[in-house]
């Protein structure tokens, strides 16, 4: 029997909802689409599925090697699946935070952020890196060592991704307060995709925004500063291959020019934008300049 994959089951609904959002955006003027941008996002999504299938054996092999050392042997039950879902969302938070703060992981994750548009098709703009983004796998180790079945981890992770689809939209403003307080919402995730200085490195949550509130990375959307989407150095291509490779090409380019093992190490593991002479911008330096410009003149 094939394992149940929530993303595969939801894909037809994704297609219907993307089209519905396009029609709604055209009729009401709320929400923006760009033909080549949407085409690129869809092709990125397709490429990501293919890359995922090609590299699935690497992930399975990695997990199978760790599984024998599990502390517990948790069986299938609704309560176990619920616990796994919550813990996987915590895992997602830290993986996602690392994906913005560690250049090696950012080289892959940057693809998801490479559009200047924010609509349901953006949700499908997923990276192709797979095995190249290997360090990301280590975030799975605690769940495997706790003893959750590998199929259960894959299942709840699929549910998590399905949840994140609908939050990529500008047509939903704010939801009821209790929901905005606990759950990741379109408003919170718009902040995450924004390049405005005040919003950088915020809202890494997958499903529960609570993690950002607990770990100090929450930022609320401010109506006076509408999000501008994309990445700090916006890309100028709609070619899926260029989009998929640009983070890796940039990383390889810098690594080839590293003057010492220490520099190479920091190029891989320091935040994106780190350079030996400090001549490039990082999100920290952008935020610091923005904050100092806001200080009242003494």
């Amino acid at each position, binding site marked *: 029997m094939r394992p149940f994959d929530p993303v595969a089951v939801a894909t037809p609904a994704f*297609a219907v909802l*993307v*089209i519905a959002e*396009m*029609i709604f*955006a*055209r009729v009401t003027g709320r929400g*923006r*689409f*760009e*033909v*080549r*941008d*949407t*085409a690129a996002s*869809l092709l990125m999504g397709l490429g990501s599925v293919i890359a995922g299938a090609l590299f699935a054996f690497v992930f399975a092999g990695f997990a199978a090697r760790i599984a024998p050392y599990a502390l517990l042997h948790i069986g299938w039950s609704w309560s176990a699946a619920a616990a796994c879902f919550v813990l996987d969302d915590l895992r997602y938070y830290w993986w996602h935070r690392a994906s913005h703060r560690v250049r090696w992981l950012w080289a892959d994750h940057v693809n998801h952020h490479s559009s*200047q*548009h924010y609509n349901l*098709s953006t949700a499908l703009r997923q990276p192709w890196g797979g095995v190249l983004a290997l360090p990301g796998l280590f975030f799975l180790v605690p769940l495997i060592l706790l003893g959750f079945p590998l199929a259960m981890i894959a299942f709840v992770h699929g549910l998590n991704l399905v949840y994140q689809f609908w939050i990529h939209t500008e047509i939903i403003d704010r939801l009821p307060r209790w929901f905005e307080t606990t759950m990741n919402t379109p408003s919170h995730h718009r902040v995450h995709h924004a390049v*405005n200085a005040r919003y950088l490195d915020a809202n890494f949550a997958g499903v529960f925004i609570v993690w950002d509130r607990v770990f100090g990375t929450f930022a609320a959307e401010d109506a006076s500063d509408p999000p*501008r989407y*994309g990445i700090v*150095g*916006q*890309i*100028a*291509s*709609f070619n899926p291959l*260029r*989009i998929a*490779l*640009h983070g890796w*090409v*940039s990383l390889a380019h810098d690594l080839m020019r590293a003057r010492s093992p220490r520099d190479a190490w920091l190029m891989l593991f320091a935040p994106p934008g780190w350079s030996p002479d400090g001549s490039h911008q990082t999100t920290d330096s952008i935020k610091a*300049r*923005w904050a100092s*410009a806001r200080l009242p003149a003494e």
Partner: protein
Amino acid sequence: MVGVCAVLFGRAPRGLDADAVARRLECEVQGFRPGQAAFSADGRAALIEDAAHGDLYLVVQRGTAMVSRRLSRKLLKETRADDATLSLRLRDFTLRRAVLGLGDAQTWRARLEELA
């Protein structure tokens, strides 16, 4: 999906607008003050000076969005100009070429050659 998008949103975008370019750079560059600017005749690219810091920016239109780059000798691979066209080749994986229809292309080329 792409077909539906083309039907609903397939109109050709308007060219770059001077105010929008300046506003965009003000958002992207702390303290940016628009100085001299030159817009390509096709409206798809512009050169604009940051009068506050003395930098020069290339802004290109990509669909309905804009992409900017601070120009430097390191970024510019080749600069060519004839009477009415300035062609730039850049060391940039996603923005490798920009062509601007400018009446004073030679003047801007000379300006670019002075960049640090």
